[in-house]
């Protein structure tokens, strides 16, 4: 087209790909979405040979779409790992991740999958990680 019209056009950028998520390359089928700060604070991060770690700038970046895509492509377990509320550089990363994990769990529940397929763990300043209970709400009943 550009040859016939003589106009110069910017090359078509390949933007159609979805966010590339690494897929359970490990035999355990575990996919981790982790905040880089949280990952650095953990005492031992040499787990990369057994799990697939996707580094994010903040755990607030994670969304239910990423979690579902990992499960769709065969993950047996998804771990969402971030900084806790007091140590998040971006203030509300833990809150945003909590909402997304809860949304994913609600959807897993309706799909008939184990809702504990995805877990949220938050790392404190001193490097200890705590699992955060996320209750799925299920489908809302009609208010009576």
């Amino acid at each position, binding site marked *: 087209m550009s040859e016939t019209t003589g106009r110069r056009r910017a090359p078509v950028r390949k933007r159609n790909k979805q966010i590339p998520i690494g897929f359970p390359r490990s035999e355990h089928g575990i996919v981790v979405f982790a905040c880089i700060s949280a990952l650095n604070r953990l005492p031992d991060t040499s787990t990369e040979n057994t799990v697939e770690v996707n580094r994010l700038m903040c755990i607030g970046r994670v969304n239910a779409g*990423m979690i579902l895509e990992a499960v769709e492509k065969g993950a047996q377990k998804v771990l969402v790992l971030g900084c806790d509320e007091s140590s998040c550089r971006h203030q509300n990363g833990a809150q945003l991740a909590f*909402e997304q994990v809860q949304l994913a769990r609600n959807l897993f529940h309706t799909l008939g999958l184990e809702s504990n397929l995805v877990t949220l763990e938050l790392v404190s300043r001193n490097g200890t990680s705590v699992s955060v209970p996320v209750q799925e709400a299920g489908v809302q009943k009609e208010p009576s």
Partner: protein
Amino acid sequence: MNRSAAQSAAQHNPELLQDAWTCQGCGKCTAVCPVSRTGLGFSPRRLIQKAVQDNVDTVLPDRALYACLGCDRCTQVCKSGISISGLMLKLRALAYKQGIAGKPAHAGVLQSLMRIMASGSAAPQNRLEWLDSSLSVADQGDVLYFVGCAPYFETVFNYLGVQPLRTARNAIRLLNHIGIKPVLLPDERCCGHDLLWLGDVDNFKKLAERNLTQIKAAQARTVVFSCPEGLRTFKLDYPRYFGSLEFEVLHISEFLTSGTNGQLKPGALSTRVAYHDPCRLGRHLGIYDPPRKLLESIPGLELVEMKHTREAATCCGGTCWIECGAAVKSLQNERLDEARSTKADRLVTACPKCDIHLRCALVNAESDTGPAITNIVDLVAESLRLTEPAKPRKAAKHTRKGGEAYAG
């Protein structure tokens, strides 16, 4: 168009371009296209000519392929009778095989959900938890109600305040009201509309096969839909892949007004409403009158028409949860402005997706004043006092998704 060039291209891709080579290049499609009107450079004519004159492969990575909403406004005016949305379906299927797909909206949650449903891993679903003792349903029978993706939409779009499950409950109440106990499939799958329009034909077929098997086992003769996309997919797309259906498919507004199934007599409701024609129900299937007939049968209700109505109705801007952007938002805002100018109390639609998209635009608009967006099923149920009026659920504006607060 150069006919010999077109013919050679058509010979090169006989199945793909069998319609397209008759394009006369008149540009009517682009003139009426709602996405072209937004000025962001989309042109169905250019796309077709590029597909026919150049190599088809040059069209596939083009973002324009995914800008099309499939609203079929162009197909209506095409002098050569080209089904442009049909051509888009074929091109997208070809692109998908090469690993190209549109950019998913909502972070791809909905596409992943559908693919998980298509795979064997999601059985059995917990999709009927919302049923309560006031609703009578059966395991087998003549009439089946296809719920569609409502249980998933209710969860994903909770932050917008939409209530698709309320519509599903009300649809069952209306059917119960005329003495019908509908069959509900406990492991119903997505109809596959969105995956088909994305180009993922393999997963579409898996979903369709599962649905058809279950409907056959339930021995249903009529399948009733409150979702026009489901209806379109069953009526037009399933027969293309699986042969003619052994049952009748009807939209709930057709079913309730046909008279053969016990005519519904709605109660009185004093309100002024504007009706928004969903593309799949209107232009794709030609169902314009049954919803209007249903609305007009409500005593006290005043039905007003918007500027663009029936065949010329503008689209809510959603196709298969891809490419949500400036063009789509401007379409939605235009539609809301049209509704506001009618001074209607409510904007009634018959499609859960129109409800979601228009409400999204309303929530994100600077002044979120506008008519209340209501599903036709909910309105009729309200007129019969079968349900409570919808409580205004304020959407969460400042978080991405209004989930429960994280307690530390």
